[in-house]
């Protein structure tokens, strides 16, 4: 199982969050939205210019920019 940056995931790929390296405001926001370790996620789409991306987690849809996805690390191919 590889640990990769969330940005690396392709559309329709599933993964489990292993770590969130963001601190401060961004970190708080990421966690408040439910992006915490052990959460299953699936990339369900990207905006026309490939950024932001849309994720499915905990039964809802969340969009975030690639620059924000860089702080989130996931375990690929596990779900």
């Amino acid at each position, binding site marked *: 199982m590889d640990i990769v940056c969330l940005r690396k995931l392709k559309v329709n790929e599933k993964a489990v969050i292993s770590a969130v390296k963001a601190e401060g405001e961004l970190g708080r926001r990421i966690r408040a939205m439910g992006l915490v370790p052990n959460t299953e996620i699936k990339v369900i789409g990207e905006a026309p210019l490939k950024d*932001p991306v849309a994720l499915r987690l905990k039964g809802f849809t969340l*969009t*975030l920019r690639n620059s924000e996805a860089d702080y989130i690390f996931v375990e690929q191919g596990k779900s």
Partner: protein
Amino acid sequence: MKQNYEFALAGNPNAGKTTMFNTLTGGRQRVGNYPGVTVEKREGSMRFGSDDLNIVDLPGTYSLTAYTQEELVSRTYLVDSKPGCVINIVDATNLERNLYLTVQLLELGSPLVVALNMMDEVRKQGRHINTSLLSHHLRAPAIETVARTGEGKDDMITAAMKMSCDRQGALNPLVITYGPDLDPVITQIADMIEDLKLCDGRFPSRWLAIKYLEGDDQILDIVTKAGEKSEAIKKLAEKTAKHCKDTLGIYPESLIADYRYGFIASILKDGVMADDSALDRVILSDRIDALLTNRFFGPVIMLMVLYAMFAITFKLGAAPMGWLEALFGWLGDTVASIMPDGDLESLVVSGVIGGVGGVLGFVPLIIIMFMMVTFLEDSGYMARMAYMMDRVLRIFGLHGSSVMPLIIAGGIPGGCAVPGVMASRILRSPKEKLATLLVVPFMNCGAKVPVFILICGAFFGEKAALAMFGATITSWIFALLAARFLRSTLIRGDATPFLMELPPYRLPTFKGLIIHTWERAWQYIKKAGTVILGLSVIIWAGMTYPGLDEAQKAGFETKKSEIQTKISSVSDNDEKAGLEAKLEEISAEESMKTLRVSYAGMLGQALEPISKLAGFDWRVNIALIGGFAAKEVIVSSLGTAYSMGNVDAEHSEGLGKRLASDPGWNVAVALALMIFVMLYSPCFVTVVAIAKEASRKWAAFSMVFNTTVAFVFSVAVYNIGMWLFV
């Protein structure tokens, strides 16, 4: 016995909190602001049995940290105002994430009733939530509700009343475990905080301890104020942070969030929720999104939606706007015929009726526009627009959600900056919101268009359509570049995190649509009656006084009466028409001379040495000064200043010819004027709107900044134009 209760509604955005608020209070709502911030405070009242209830709708938040204004005002309200009960509206289809706020509310110790909203959709999905088990774990009553239909609202209110009576404001915090690394430290810090007596009954000490470890600014402040004694707490917290970082590789803050979600997961796994396999609503939304946010069709459909919205607004708005215009026209005529001629008549007709009428004329437009904006917002499509546009707008320091205000303000020519500025409140990130509302006035609103048509028609002839298109593109370029400039100077700072929920598509409720639309229209109408009335009187006075001296007045009167006598004595129709035209000419000349000697005229002439740098003479200056009242005034003031009499903005060909043949005018002046009109100070209705959405300081800034930008660029255009074409 009759009692008064105060309840607060708290919950995530899109959880149906506002729908519940509307269901409970209907039209009995008041909208204000929390002190010192631009976050809306909604309050409403309702009667339940024999009791009067006051309901406060807190801003939608995902968390209770102190880092957004919304979260801070919610928290401050809960701590300081101590509502009898907090009703936490939870989207039951999205329980796990929604409970994150619930747990934080419970840790704060607030008396809480959980409303499991959207239960109809949960049932439709064939899922099951064990409400009593959830209630048991949370140690708070949980009630199933459907805000749209009002199902369960009576049970919810009854539970809240009971909670309010039982608890009488006492704090009863929920205690959850934060693991072996943090629990002992939390207890230790909580004890130290007790010793320092920092809670003063407002917070549970454990909550303060947790927030301190989370690095919450407001709480750090409170503790630091205790002086030297707080040093021990600080040391302990730093030691703990280092320990977590060294052994676990994360900060206490992250650890706390993980345990909170862990607590929620443990509750849900304990049989509260049957495993969700089919997520109907989400699946349907995904199918719609496959088309609406498709790489190719998404932007195409978005453009079509925006254009349709525009076309509908102006098609539907045209008729009622015409009626209002006719009504105020009639009112003006009637008052003019009743009142004796003179300054008072002029004040009432031109200053009061003309000024207020001009503003109220926009009401139908604002109502229709906001109805559609509210529809797009409540249906969930607005979030998709932001999602699609974000990449482009981010380059300029804006946010995906900035697209709506820009379009409304005139991204498609013919908008209006006032609803554009008001629409900027959909932006939740303060810096991007400020930058958006400051550049919105650069767009080509409906009142600038007649000026462009006049100038294009006069100087660019057949290329007028191209020139209009050029004006639209130019205004976008200026707005975006100005945003980039502001975001790298005065409103500097990193982009606010985008992280945004894409709520499932929903059909908005009619009630909500009407309530929110009317609210915005009413705010606008109130302004017309107060600030704008005052300013329009001032501008009227500036363009009327001190007036011609007696000798000049008498001169015009003599000339006019001479011709009047002639008209009544001639019988030939052609000759009569000629004389009447002559009479109008004299009136036009009189208006021009009056304007020239008025305060506005004096100002226009005083500014001429400067404005000449951009090729504008005193007549243009007057028109531009008048344009501050409303950009519509520019064409009619030019008409007066060039002795053309009353020029209708829609039929300005005569004035166009006059300008084209005037020696003071050429292509360079025309281009410079177009740039100036496009960019200079927003009209005062917009300035008032900016003051309301941002602050007076920023409203003043927008007048100075925009006028400076306009002047610099029109001087440049004039000089380049002179060099190229003349």
